[in-house]
């Protein structure tokens, strides 16, 4: 860490900002996982595949229907969320009474199917998606592409709105109540199964939204999700799935940590999150924001 002194503070600022951008993706994905887990008790292994579907959705809307990025930003998550809700109705619903592991296994199978189908259709090399906000601003300490700035702001807004809805509104309170005692909430005349379906759709939609945001920055490729999802799992284990805010803070925080590792010791940047996970498990097994259950 003595190399810290060798890095000019401006460069450090730049790297911090970059870390925040990556963290935005972690935060949105782990938020979606946390929302789904909270109500369904299912770890959605297909989350990475749904993120990829979001990106492909944007690509297809542009190339087949001529709908530009801004339209896709709204449409693609909705379409993917609808597909997700169908999956919940047809397949996932039958597993709620069983061990949670079955949900994990089912969604793992779904992830394989989705990835396989997209690879079959579009190959593995990936497809180009043009940057909707070209150019950038020179901040003095770094060149910040406009699009990246947009990603951070957009994901922050989405995360905070989600947090607000779940923690501060009546709808959110139903949701939280249904998590604890579905039978009681049902007794109050609330359609819990429909709420579960909508929640799954919402979580999936968040993943797809992250995918659309990723499309112009990264290559749209069928494998983009499976590489990311394992890191996001580690993020979730670190944060614990107790709170929505926890998922958001851990996501952004780990993005920054990973960003700094890329400067000081890039060889470790792919493993740093896993190392942190191991440490957290030793010190606080329930995760930073989790409560032991």
């Amino acid at each position, binding site marked *: 860490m003595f190399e810290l002194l060798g890095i000019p503070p401006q460069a450090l600022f730049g790297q911090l900002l970059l870390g925040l951008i990556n963290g935005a993706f972690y935060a949105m994905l782990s938020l979606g996982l946390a929302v789904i887990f909270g109500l369904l008790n299912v770890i959605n292994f297909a989350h990475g595949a749904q993120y990829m579907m979001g990106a492909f959705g944007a690509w297809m809307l542009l190339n087949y229907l001529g709908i530009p990025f801004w339209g896709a930003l709204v449409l693609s998550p909705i379409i993917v969320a609808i597909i997700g809700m169908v999956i919940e109705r047809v*397949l996932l619903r039958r597993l709620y009474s069983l061990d949670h592991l079955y949900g994990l296994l089912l969604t793992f199978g779904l992830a394989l199917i989705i990835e*396989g189908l997209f690879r079959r259709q579009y190959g593995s090399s990936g497809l180009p998606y043009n940057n909707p906000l070209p150019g950038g601003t020179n901040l003095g300490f770094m060149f910040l592409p406009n699009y990246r700035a947009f990603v951070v702001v957009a994901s922050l807004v989405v995360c905070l709105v989600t947090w607000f809805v779940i923690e501060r509104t009546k709808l959110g309170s139903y949701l939280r109540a249904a998590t604890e005692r579905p039978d009681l909430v049902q007794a109050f005349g609330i359609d819990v199964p429909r709420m579960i379906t909508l929640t799954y759709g919402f979580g999936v939609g968040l993943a797809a939204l992250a995918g659309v945001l990723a499309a112009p920055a990264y290559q749209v490729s069928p494998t983009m999700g499976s590489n990311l999802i394992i890191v996001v799992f580690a993020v979730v284990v670190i944060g614990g799935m107790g709170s929505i805010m926890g998922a958001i803070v851990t996501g952004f925080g780990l993005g920054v940590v990973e960003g700094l590792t890329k400067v000081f010791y890039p060889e470790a940047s792919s493993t740093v999150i896993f190392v942190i996970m191991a440490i957290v498990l030793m010190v606080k097994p329930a995760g930073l924001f989790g409560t032991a259950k």
Partner: protein
Amino acid sequence: MSSSSSSTLPAAAAPASSSVMTVLGILAVAVLLVAPFGVYPVFLMKVMCFALFACAFNLMLGYTGLLSFGHAMFFGGSAYICAHTVKVLGFTPELGILSGVLFAAVLGFVTGLLAIRRQGIYFAMVTLALAQMFFFFCLQAPFTGGEDGLQSVPRRPLFGFIDISQDIHLYYMVLAIFLFGFLVIYRTIHSPFGQVLKAIRENEPRAISLGYRANQYKLLAFVLSAALAGLAGSTKVMVFQLASLTDVAWQMSGEVVLMTLVGGMGTILGPVVGAAVIVTMQNYLAGLGEWVLVIQGVIFVAAVSLFRRGIVGEIIAIVKYYGTKKAG
């Protein structure tokens, strides 16, 4: 995770009457002894390696109720150690395999210490993440050869005098290792240790209140499972004469879950059947490219939705059903 949810994994099938089992066992071994004269031996050896791997994995999932999504690290890690010691350090095959198994056991101990702090799906995620960390380690460490892997591992004479360079000779070595591993697992499950594991799976708080240190039992089971997965990985090195990143990638962890699920978790023969089915399928369908991925996914979904007990589990259930009907 709440403990109430952990009771729906299919319970281990009660062993059929032991004399029938013995006869069937002898028959199976006899078939395996002559099989290489009818079927391509390399294919059979591949099936046996994966069958052993799946059996080792099933020791965790089926009998301890813990789903490890990181077993590839023991399989592949052991493969690398075995390949390295045999190719670079000039070990004989048995010493190479032994070093691989030892390494897998130590790795299992370290990761087990961390992973058993969480249960259920958290356990799955933790093992997956640790295995991914190990994957990156293997990718970057110079001795593994990175993307290239370790090739042309020599098949030196076993114990210094048994020639295994011929596929057919090697086959009997692999068969012996497979039977050894299988018997170890069989004995473990039917030992008092295995009974305690089942008790922990069914109701952990009760087992603890009975005075069993659940975590120590789980850790021991994890180390044993890791070591046997390592045995399978090292044996595979001798068959294919190579160790590569494929063996430590997360897809490999997924495949072994699939094999166990399809065959029937918590049954002693299930993983063997599952491994045979999946390996055969991969062989037949190799020409279909990415459809293999789709088909595997479909099998996953179908197994979870339609036959959760797996092939062997369903057969046992049917036999039991008719058995009770006759008796009643």
